[in-house]
């Protein structure tokens, strides 16, 4: 049902840091953001109100806490950033909520109590600190469907942890070569299968996906399945490998498909077909003629995330100029929308945007490729697990859009 009639229901811009991760919990009642300053902000959806129909289901700040602080590794003369790379919620098992947050080196488990009527505020408390297991920078964490374990992945290794045990973890993937001069690829993202607790996937900087089965071996260096699209050798350029690097991988809710994002496209893969993706969506192909300057200003290394809607029928990903894109897998329609104060008043419907090639035919509200602002990148987006509500992080602003007309998934 594209284009959706999304309207802005909340936009927050604390004068603070750049948002670095956004994640709904499993019911969508809570939304957590992490930022570059190591802080986590949790929003809670207000229950529907009969007296004020338009304020139903809006998100308000529930709790804020400092998750990570900057650290120094004196031995290596390295600063460890406090930036929160990822947040993942645990499925709720009792009254309280739990989430995992990670910076480059340390993963922490936090308890988020449920606010009782007499409480004035919610105090989040740290329950576990999982440290000293990663030489390289942690890019992903993923909670297993067994509710007991989770994995953390850095550039070269993936570790498996038990949620109750902090002093050790199992290494399940190690792609570090004996000689670092032989290094050709790094791990870019990893995720557990939503239902099969023995399966996980990890993506690489060379554009491949590897599905691994923990039942086959203790060390999953050998994949069960390798997903790779064959390359056209005549089309190969200096940029080919860089733009093929997968910046994010997400299982569909059904567990049947994988969604990946590389620099210019989003792809849907069928777990049963390793030879090529099922569907390829062009996010911003007009950037192909800008690759030289995008390499010079490092934008070519930007890591965009991607998301499924609850019914796996629509996929979403961010782009530049505060634009984000949605693709309907069934109708094959797509839409470009903008997350910015100027273009969205609360409750007004978002207007689809269009980017035209330089010198191309321009309609009134079109924007030319040459006018795109590459500093305004939407790297982090999240979709409510069951409703048409999305959270978009635009630098240090958080936007939450709701589709009030089509609130149920199709």
């Amino acid at each position, binding site marked *: 049902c594209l284009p959706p009639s999304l309207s802005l229901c909340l936009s927050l811009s604390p004068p603070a840091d750049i948002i670095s991760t956004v994640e709904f919990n499993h019911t969508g009642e809570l939304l957590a953001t992490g930022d570059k300053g190591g802080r986590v902000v949790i929003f809670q959806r207000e229950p529907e109100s009969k007296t004020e129909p338009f304020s139903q289901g809006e998100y308000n700040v529930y709790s804020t806490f400092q998750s990570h*602080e900057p650290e120094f590794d004196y031995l290596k003369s390295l600063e460890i*950033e406090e930036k929160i790379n990822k947040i993942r919620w645990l499925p709720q098992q009792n009254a309280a909520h739990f989430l995992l947050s990670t910076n480059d080196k340390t993963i922490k488990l936090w308890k988020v109590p449920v606010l009782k009527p007499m409480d004035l505020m919610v105090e989040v408390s740290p329950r576990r600190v999982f440290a000293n297991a990663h030489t390289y920078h942690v890019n992903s964490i993923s909670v297993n469907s067994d509710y007991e374990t989770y994995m953390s992945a850095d*550039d070269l290794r993936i570790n498996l942890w038990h949620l109750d045990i902090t002093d050790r973890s199992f290494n399940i993937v190690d792609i570090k070569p004996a000689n670092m001069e032989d290094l050709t690829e*790094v791990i870019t993202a990893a995720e557990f299968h939503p239902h099969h607790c023995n399966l996980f996937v990890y993506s690489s900087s060379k554009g491949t996906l590897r599905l691994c089965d923990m039942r086959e071996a203790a060390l999953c260096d050998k994949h069960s399945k390798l997903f790779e699209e064959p390359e056209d050798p005549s*089309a190969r*350029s200096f*940029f080919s490998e860089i733009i093929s690097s997968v910046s994010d991988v997400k299982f569909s809710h059904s567990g049947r498909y994988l969604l990946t994002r590389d620099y210019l496209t989003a792809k849907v893969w069928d777990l049963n077909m390793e030879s090529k993706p099922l569907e390829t969506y062009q996010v911003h192909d007009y950037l192909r003629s800008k690759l030289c300057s995008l390499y010079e200003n490092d934008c070519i290394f930007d890591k965009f995330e991607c998301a499924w809607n609850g019914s796996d029928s629509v996929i979403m990903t961010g782009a530049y100029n505060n634009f984000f894109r949605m693709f309907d897998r069934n109708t094959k329609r797509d839409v470009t929308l903008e997350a910015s104060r100027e273009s969205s008043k609360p409750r007004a419907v978002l207007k689809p945007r269009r980017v035209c090639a330089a010198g191309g035919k321009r309609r009134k509200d079109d924007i030319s490729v040459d006018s795109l602002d590459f500093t305004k990148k939407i790297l982090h987006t999240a979709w409510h697990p069951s409703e048409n509500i999305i959270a978009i992080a635009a630098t240090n602003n958080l936007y939450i859009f709701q589709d009030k007309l089509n609130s149920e998934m199709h």
Partner: protein
Amino acid sequence: MEDKVISPEKEEEAKLKARYPNLGAKPGGSDLLRKRLLQKGQKYFDSGDYNMAKAKMKNKQLPSAPTEKTEITGGHIPTPQDLPQRKTSIVASKLAG
């Protein structure tokens, strides 16, 4: 008659090579990856090393700062100009109030 159309990607590649003739042919590979792996986290200036290196080379010029696209190898003693400025971290909560 066949028209030879150069893909936009190949055009961009030619542009890049024209601007940086010393750029290696292999864009991926260990150099770029290692630089990006090690790039995060700043290397601090060791005054002892610096002064000893300076004393050793008192008659020679100090090595100039490398251009952006080449790697600072382990053997190179960083000079103050080489090091990125350490950013201040936000300590106080900005969401207070």
